[in-house]
């Protein structure tokens, strides 16, 4: 058994176990942490397949952004996860059927691909094997696809403008931090020396 196979089995076992943990953990925060663990191990599986760009993407996008967002939502919203779990047994049969169908589909597709290989002659550009796939994506992203890349940037800009236009409100009476004022503050401006008479205290 070579090193790759060992790595594969270790990573897959952790992925499956942590995925089970996501759905079975009582505490929703633990569920999210299990989810992050399963993302990490799935990224490891991608590295084993030679798709290191997808692995990085999985960690940066899913762990870095999506899972953290989940954590925020779980912690900030007062969702009663106990009530969501009600009826678990009642829906178990139909859930089991859906899961079984999914498993059968996956096995069929996997065996078909295993026997015949993925669809051939799709006209997609041939993969150059002289460079890692991050470099290959970089090569086409900033050459052939530069127009789409820049245009997608404009779409994101519109999303940002839209979010600001539709949600930002300048309410009167809101105190804002003014760094200039803070820096320009001197002891003379910020302090007042008060002579307090003994036994009277101060009130303001």
């Amino acid at each position, binding site marked *: 058994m070579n090193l790759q196979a060992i790595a594969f089995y270790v990573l897959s076992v952790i992925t499956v176990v942590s995925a089970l943990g996501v759905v079975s953990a009582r505490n929703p925060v633990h569920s999210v942490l299990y989810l992050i663990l399963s993302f990490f191990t799935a990224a490891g599986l991608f590295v084993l397949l030679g798709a290191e760009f997808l692995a990085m993407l999985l960690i940066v996008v899913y762990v870095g952004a999506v899972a953290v967002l989940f954590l925020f939502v779980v912690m900030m919203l007062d969702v009663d996860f106990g009530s969501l779990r009600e009826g678990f047994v009642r829906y178990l049969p139909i859930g089991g059927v859906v899961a079984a169908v999914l498993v059968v589909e996956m096995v069929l597709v996997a065996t078909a691909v295993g026997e015949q290989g993925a669809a051939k*002659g*799709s*006209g*997609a550009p041939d993969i150059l094997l002289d460079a890692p796939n991050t470099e290959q994506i970089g090569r086409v992203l900033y050459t*052939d*696809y*530069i*127009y*789409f890349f*820049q*245009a*997608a940037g*404009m*779409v994101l*800009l*519109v*999303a940002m*403008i*839209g979010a*600001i*236009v*539709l949600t930002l409100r300048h309410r009167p009476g809101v105190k804002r931090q003014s760094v200039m004022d803070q820096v320009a503050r001197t002891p003379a401006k910020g302090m007042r020396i008060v002579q307090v008479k003994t036994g009277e205290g101060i009130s303001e």
Partner: protein
Amino acid sequence: MMDFSGAVALALPEIILAVGALILLMVGAFGGDKSTGLVSVGSGGVLIAGAVAAAYGPLGSTFNGGFVADNAAAFAKVFIYGFSAVGVLLGDRWLKRMAASKFEFPVLIVIAALGMGMMASAGDLISLYIGVELQSLALYVLCAFRRDDAKASEAGLKYFVLGALSSGLLLYGASLIYGFAGSTKFVDIAAAVQAGAGQGAIFGVVFLICGLAFKVSAAPFHMWTPDVYEGAPTPVVAFVAAAPKMAAMVLFARALLQGFPGAVGQWQQVLVVVAALSMGWGALAGLRQRNLKRLLAYSSVTNIGYALLGIAAGTDQGVTAMLVFMVLYMIDTTGLFACLLALNRDGKPMETLADFAGLAKEKPGLALCITGLSFSVMGIPPFAGFWAKFYVFKAAIAAGLWPIAVFGLVASVVAAFYYLRIIKTMWFDPSPGRTDASPLDARGVAVAAALFSCGLVVLALNPLDTVAKLAAAAFHLS
């Protein structure tokens, strides 16, 4: 592969718009609300500069086939950018009157126009989608721009949710086409489906048509139109009703005629059904409307049906007809919305049919404009709308689609009823009260559109025909 300067020269109109929008955004962000006037004027200037660059720019294809600058794109862009500039004018003045000026408004119009330009120039399924998305996102925000107005927010949200659904359909179709044709470029797709498209590709085309029909608000994908037109601010509707429709129709023509020239017979059936449903449903449903903005929404559904008929013909003549139709329709609809914008009573916009009673005595000029534009949309000769319909029906009959052309004629007779009802209400019913003074900008646009549609069109038709023929020739059809 073209060198960098060649690519920049071809995409110059879009680069002007993109860079202009970024600069104006910075001016607005650092200048605050004081700079709104400056940003509006700048936006108008940028749009006009884009239109000029599109009219006189070089022709060709660049960015690996993703961007096509041909006569059809140039034709569409000149009108799209021009009408966007009108949208900036109407919107800016209107917001000023509402004391709700914000510099983002003109910037969003420029970015929407950029998206439309990309749609008109799309030579690839990816640029098609990104263009559509850029334009739609900007329009969603514009519709909900007055966020304190519950109706406008509802309109924006509805538009957004249904638009996202249609984008999903579009993407599904695009992925099927990519899967079965092996390329996202229209040129390569055309080569792959030369001898008629297979089952999978046809499935993809149908979804693509559904997604695009949504964007042009053709029946049965028009359900968002009346609600959005009614709820969104009138100047935004004046913009949404004109320029984006032109961009989407050119995109429609390009995707089908350049991507699937070998499968005309297959997508023609789908398009004919969509066109017939639009013409019929728009005319019938419009009869029940009492709100003029809703009525104009159904009128736009009907008119998009006529324009789709031009594409369905699948010939050079059909595309020419579609382009001429869209230009004349844009002028009519912008004029009508400008009339609505110009009419207020006690500070409230006049939007229902009852509000228009006796308008002819109070505002004879505007009443005359509405009458003329209504006659034009109805298709009474010699007004603009008549020529528009004449072109489309002629092309449809030449392509052997005469049953559907006859159906369109019947639909236009039905639709004539609701325009006639507006005219009757204005000229013969007693007035309920005084109207407010109408603002100069809206009145100016209304009068200009009415003058064009009711007279100048006869002079303009000849040059328009020549240019549209040149533009249609870009699709290399028989």
